[in-house]
């Protein structure tokens, strides 16, 4: 008699099957209970451990004991001619069938019930077409299908269903950036952005990207002085996989020493490319370090090289706890989804992540600048660079929108004033561009010029300030104002032409401009601005005493006279 046939005879195999099936059912019920009734997050792990411990006990019990008409006896003591193991086996079969049936019912119910168990947010009326959305936006109305809600742990979620293509764009704005750093950990927010792709207690390093790409998704992330933003683009079919991946790294990030060292190398390579071997990047870095003397906007987002080389695992873990909390994040989902399913998914996947104490506010306020500042970088350069920046307001400052229009007049496109004067008429520069920092705290209005090899930066600077003085004195013309508004309006439409553009615009407005609704007020706010509003904003900002002037050029050679 083989061991196998004896295992069968004593119903051990049936008991094992029944145990596994019933166990799975119990784990599932625990999971349902956890997500619906708020059991602690380790509930089903606990159930699994109990069941695993019980399994060998059950098997040994089944092997050793046998049910007889007179009760439980040791199997070896039962007279096999009197054995009723066959009857017991039939009962076990029936129990197996019932358990499988229960499992099937439960699985079906899982698909139907949760939406009932947790009240979903109000479903918007009919799905409007994108054209309706566009018309609504022009009229300043917030498209009715956008739904926002906040989970119990403080995670803010905004959903814009749009089924033009079967894809989804998802942005997670984390309020952590260069402004949250201090000497010794400069660049940590950006390094953290890299670490978020490098493994959790559940997933090996590299698995996040591997699973995402294997399911048709792609991702990226960026860090600024104010926020770190995680972006996913994926087919609708991968929706739940992405929620699993995203919530996992927000709950269970791992900090492996070897991985940290390897990623340090990656960031050093990134710094060499973006800053050290890029004259524009070098000047940009020095500008922020010079224009800000107190506020942490002075730190390069990528970090000073000595800090990149030195930060520790402790620094990372502290940073993770403090900033990667649901109450410090805003999640935007745009694309082929419904608000109800996103509500359910965020509840299931992000809901169990506990909130943290809000991060300490950034206290330091940059003191007013009281005179022009200058600096020079001397390095090998075939084309000198001239950068000029002015202190201005935060994203929420009333001057921010008029200044955005002013930059359109001054430096956007070939017809702009500075381009016409510096590039076309006087051939002092080969290009000019501008940048407006729109963050939580007052930032810079930034102009960057690449000069022709023979241009003396001083002469370009003189022309630049003449043009700005003219704006302050006389303002812009009605035609220029109209042009600046049209550029802004057309950009508004371009943003709304893709699910990616919609997600980014919603997030930027939600995080920096007091609410996503302000995105749709933008065309109206722009139209309301007058020539006077622009001139007044210009007068407040474009003052020499408010300027920092940076020059990058080759070292003056002595035989060049």
């Amino acid at each position, binding site marked *: 008699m083989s061991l196998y046939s004896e295992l069968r005879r004593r119903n051990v195999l049936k008991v094992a099957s029944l145990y*596994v099936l019933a166990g799975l059912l119990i784990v599932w019920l625990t999971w349902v209970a956890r997500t619906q009734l708020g059991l602690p997050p380790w509930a089903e792990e606990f159930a699994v451990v109990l069941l695993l411990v019980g399994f060998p006990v059950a098997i040994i019990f089944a092997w050793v004991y046998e049910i007889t008409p007179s009760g439980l006896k040791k199997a070896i003591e039962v007279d096999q001619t009197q054995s009723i193991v066959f009857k017991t086996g039939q009962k076990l079969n029936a129990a197996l069938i019932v358990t499988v049936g229960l499992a099937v019912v439960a699985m079906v119910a899982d698909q139907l019930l949760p939406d009932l168990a947790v009240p979903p947010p109000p479903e918007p009326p009919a799905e409007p077409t994108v054209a309706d959305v566009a018309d609504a936006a022009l009229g300043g109305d917030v498209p009715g299908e956008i739904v926002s809600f906040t989970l119990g742990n403080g995670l803010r979620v905004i959903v814009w269903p749009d089924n033009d293509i079967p894809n989804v764009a998802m942005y997670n704005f984390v309020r952590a950036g260069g402004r949250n750093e201090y000497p010794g950990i400069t660049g940590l927010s950006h390094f953290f952005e890299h670490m978020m792709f490098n493994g959790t207690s559940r997933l090996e390093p590299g698995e996040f990207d591997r699973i995402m790409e294997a399911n048709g998704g792609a991702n990226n992330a960026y860090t600024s002085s104010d926020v770190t933003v995680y972006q996913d683009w994926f087919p609708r079919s991968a929706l*739940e996989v992405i929620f699993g991946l995203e919530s996992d790294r927000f709950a269970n990030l791992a900090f492996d020493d070897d991985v940290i060292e390897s990623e340090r190398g990656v960031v050093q390579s990134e710094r060499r490319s973006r800053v050290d071997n890029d*004259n524009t990047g070098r000047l940009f870095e020095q500008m922020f370090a010079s224009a800000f003397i107190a506020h942490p906007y002075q730190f390069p987002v990528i970090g000073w090289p000595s800090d990149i080389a030195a930060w520790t695992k402790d620094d990372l873990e502290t940073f993770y706890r403090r900033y990667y909390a649901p109450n410090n994040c805003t999640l935007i989902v745009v694309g082929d989804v419904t608000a109800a399913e996103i509500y359910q998914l965020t509840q299931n996947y992000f809901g169990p992540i506990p909130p943290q104490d809000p991060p300490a506010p950034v206290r330091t306020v940059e003191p007013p600048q009281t005179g022009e500042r200058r600096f020079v970088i001397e390095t090998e350069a075939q084309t000198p660079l001239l950068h000029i920046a002015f202190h201005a307001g935060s994203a929420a400052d009333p001057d921010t929108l008029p200044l955005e229009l002013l930059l359109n007049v001054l430096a956007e496109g*070939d017809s702009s004033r500075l381009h016409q004067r510096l590039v076309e008429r006087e051939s002092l520069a080969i290009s000019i561009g501008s940048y407006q920092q729109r963050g939580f705290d007052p930032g810079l209005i930034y102009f960057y010029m690449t000069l022709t090899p023979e241009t003396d930066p001083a002469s370009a600077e003189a022309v630049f300030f003449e043009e700005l003085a003219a704006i302050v004195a006389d303002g812009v013309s009605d035609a220029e104002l109209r042009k600046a508004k049209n550029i802004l309006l057309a950009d508004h439409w371009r943003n709304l032409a893709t699910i990616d553009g919609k997600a980014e615009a919603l997030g930027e407005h939600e995080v920096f401009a007091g609410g996503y609704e302000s995105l749709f007020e933008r065309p109206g706010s722009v139209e309301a601005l007058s020539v006077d509003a622009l001139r007044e904003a210009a007068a407040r900002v474009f003052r020499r005493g408010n300027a920092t002037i940076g020059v990058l050029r080759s070292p003056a050679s002595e035989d060049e006279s």
Partner: protein
Amino acid sequence: MNSLRLRPSKVPAVLTAVVLGSLLFAGSARAQSVSLPEASREQLDNGVVLLVNEKHEVPLVGIELVLRGGGVRDAEGKAGTASLYAGLLERGAGARDAAAFAEAIESVGGRLSASAERERIRISAEFLARDFPLALELLHDMLSAPTLAETEFDTLRERQSNFILAAKDSDPGALMPTYAAGFLFAGHAYGYPLAGSENSLGSISHADVLDYHANEVGGDRLIVSVSGNIDTEEVLAQLRQAFGDLAPAGRELVELPEPARAVGQRVLLIDKPDATQTYFWIGSLGVAIDYPERPALDIANTLFGGRFTSMLNTALRVESGLTYGARSVLIRPSKTGSLGISSYTRTDASVEAIDMALGVLRKLRSEGIDDDMLRSAQNYLLGDFPTRFETARQLARQFAMLEFYGLDGTTYIDAYADALRAVTTESVARVVASVYPAEDELVFVILGDAAAIREDMSRYGPLQELSITDPVFTTFATVE
């Protein structure tokens, strides 16, 4: 692949693993096929092809004009002529001088740019749909009545030269494709620096640009593609009016020769003494646009160096931290193009990184890919596919490119998803063996601090050297 420890569905992980098996490929991108929308096609008597598609979601219109010719038509020693010509088209046409032309576009928030590519000149525009008549007027003037003023030519030529200098200061990596094409194609027109070199720009005259306009621009070379919130019949009538009388180009467009099989194991070293990192490009000839096994090749290159988890990026970035990024790029023009591996690393790791890239190439060639890799790449390519057809501007470009290459949208776009799904590991292996080069076919282009790396680089083949300040991109005098 079955060591999934994440909860990818509502069902908990333990249950997932036992009952449903691996959920790594939960989605399998079922609904990711694309059906190209209808476009009306019409060919005018003068040869102009018109393509019009209505897309009404947002009040924008995308316009794509493609002129056959481009950089490959530059005369020997005058690389950059087509590029200067394209640039001049934006600097005055019809009654508008350069400033008025820019003002007309920007005052309505429009965008319009003309640029030379290897085999065409592209004019790409996007306007609010209500401004379509203005856009059409500008485009008509650009082709029929460009000013091509000599003073504008002088200004633009000098500026273009200065842009090369600025890139050498601030973005040397951006010049690597130019150095690489010059070295790989060794005299073939595909190797010309598109925007010219400081040397070649110096030898182009205003007369050369006028000659380009007279002989390389005409109705027989033109494709006009429009997509957006417009009415097809109305727009077709406007386009006939605008482009129906464009005369043919003065010269016939002769077919390009195939590039000569490249001699491998050569090294071009560009010295930038202050560089703290080494940029490298390792490549060979590749395939043309009509390569028959495109889906299998797309999958091979996605896996080798076309995405974040590619073999190259995994080895050079994820696992070793040597670089911020490593990739492989296929350029597929009308004739045989190129396949190039590119990355950068700190100066003292140059050999380590290059050898590692070569090792990854060897691995691809010897081991091929497995089923999981194949499915992953299929899903990845399918997942992203619909996002390339989302806006009017993208659609206008897609229609123009299909027309340019003589490709059928039904097979090239609509059937692509199914063709991708049909690829097997065997077909990928076949494609890898025929397209991905053996080491003796590779050429190396290296930019960095030559004093520090010269000796090490000579192990990859005989060296030719340039300095970053040299006013040329190749060592072949005739091209530039």
